[in-house]
């Protein structure tokens, strides 16, 4: 367990650095779509929601399904909105 946490922390650290490196010098027209796209990714909590709703207890089912509901709005809506925004960037 503990060694796993260490590895998870490692992953966390690397991801943070990678996140920082990836977003450098974005033109400001892309700020909003980028934010929106990142927001959709943060809907990854959907995976967690699915996992935690796979129970037979009522309270977890309720909590889990609501989590799935909200997270899927975030994911689906987020990607679509991003896509629409980016559609405006097509060169005339």
């Amino acid at each position, binding site marked *: 367990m503990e060694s*796993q*946490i260490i590895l*998870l922390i490692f*992953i*966390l650290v690397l*991801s943070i650095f*990678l*996140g*920082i490196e*990836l*977003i*450098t*010098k*974005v033109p*400001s*027209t*892309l*700020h*909003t779509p980028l*934010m*929106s*796209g*990142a*927001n*959709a*990714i*943060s*809907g*990854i*909590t*959907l*995976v*967690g929601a*699915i996992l*935690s709703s*796979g*129970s037979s*207890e009522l*309270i*977890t*089912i309720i*909590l*889990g*399904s609501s*989590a799935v*509901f*909200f*997270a899927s*709005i*975030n*994911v689906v*809506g987020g990607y*679509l*909105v991003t*896509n*629409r925004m*980016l*559609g*405006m960037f097509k060169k*005339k």
Partner: protein
Amino acid sequence: MDTSLIVNLTYIAASIFFIVGLKMLGSPETARRGNLLSSSGMLLAVVVTLLDQNIIDYRYIAGALLAGSLVGYFAATKVKMTSMPEMVAIFNGFGGIASLLVGSSEYIHSSLNNPALMGAIYLTVLIGGVTFTGSLIAYGKLSEVISGRPFLYKGQQFVNGLLLISILLVGANMLFVQEFITPNQTLILLIVLAFILGVLFVIPIGGADMPVVIALLNSFSGLAACAAGFVITNNVLIVAGALVGASGLILTNIMCKAMNRSLSNVLFSGFGAVSDTSSDSEEDQGEVSPINAQDAYLILEAATSVLIVPGYGMAVAQAQHAVRELGELLEANGAEVKYAIHPVAGRMPGHMNVLLAEANVSYDVLVEPEDVNPIMDTVDVCMVIGANDVVNPDAKDNEGSPIYGMPIIEVDNSKTVFVLKRSMASGFAGIQNPLFFKSNSRMLFGDAKETVSTLVSEFKG
């Protein structure tokens, strides 16, 4: 190979998709494909999660998934282009509440005496809750359901301090003590406090600063997902959450810089505002909007017709060579470029002609005000380079003005005006210029030669 291996390898693949997708979102040419890639990663992750886990009952999951997807779909496709930012805000809030729910659901099952796990849950719930209500308030401000004005009251700092202390105390109790209140009460208290914090965090911030706040909340929702990943020891949540958390923070910072402000200034300027008395004299002219060269470049890059209006400042800066170069680059980029020469621009008759001829600007692209004024509304961008009096709308609008009646170059009728000058100082006639305060004007402060050179560099990539 067992399923867990497949699942985990798929998670790795999904993470790669997110990483590359995020990278591609940072550049206009690849952004769309990047978004597609990242969404494929998400699909992969979800599908593989559904497939394998020892999930007992699929019905609720499927129902919730379907319902959520439909809501997301309609919200995203039906919304007006102009309301997109608030949509992003509310989606983001949903992500936050989802993380909060995941954390809560895990809390109910977990052994309470694992401080690491408790810490993870605490962070998940707290950050998720703040993201949720914060995003809702941001949504309200943007859609003008709530007033966009900073909401300020006496004693704000005191209330905030109290709130923070409570949150810390609940955390300490949850992680180490587990006394005083029941676990369920702890959870509910934490959620309530998180919600309040989210509200109080966003409400004092003005509507104009909302984009930055949303970017920050977005980063939070990533962190919440990341914390949730620790709760259920799931890598892909950690990687994706951390990616979003970190890149969101950087993005927030970039956005602040583009607005020429610091993050703390954005977040906490509301507090200072209480003591300020608004100065009316400034108010009725409105505020000028500065812009930096990088953003100006992006607008120029998209423009199909550009009108350059040189004045005495171009001569002082000796910027004519740089201006010509910029003009050539704009043309190469597909824009139609003209130079509008006002008869009295500069300090001698034909001043602009001398300089532009020196810089080899062809006579064919020089136009006079009367040729260009009638079609000014078709011009995408007017670049006013060190000119002032010759573009002063007072000459046509303000009878009291000493230059009333002089024909000017009516740049204020074009879609966007960039005014390149060093300060808000006036020109030869010594009078203020209302052009600078118009909503379609952007001030590009600095020596004209340097500013234009920077634009040239931007164009050259």
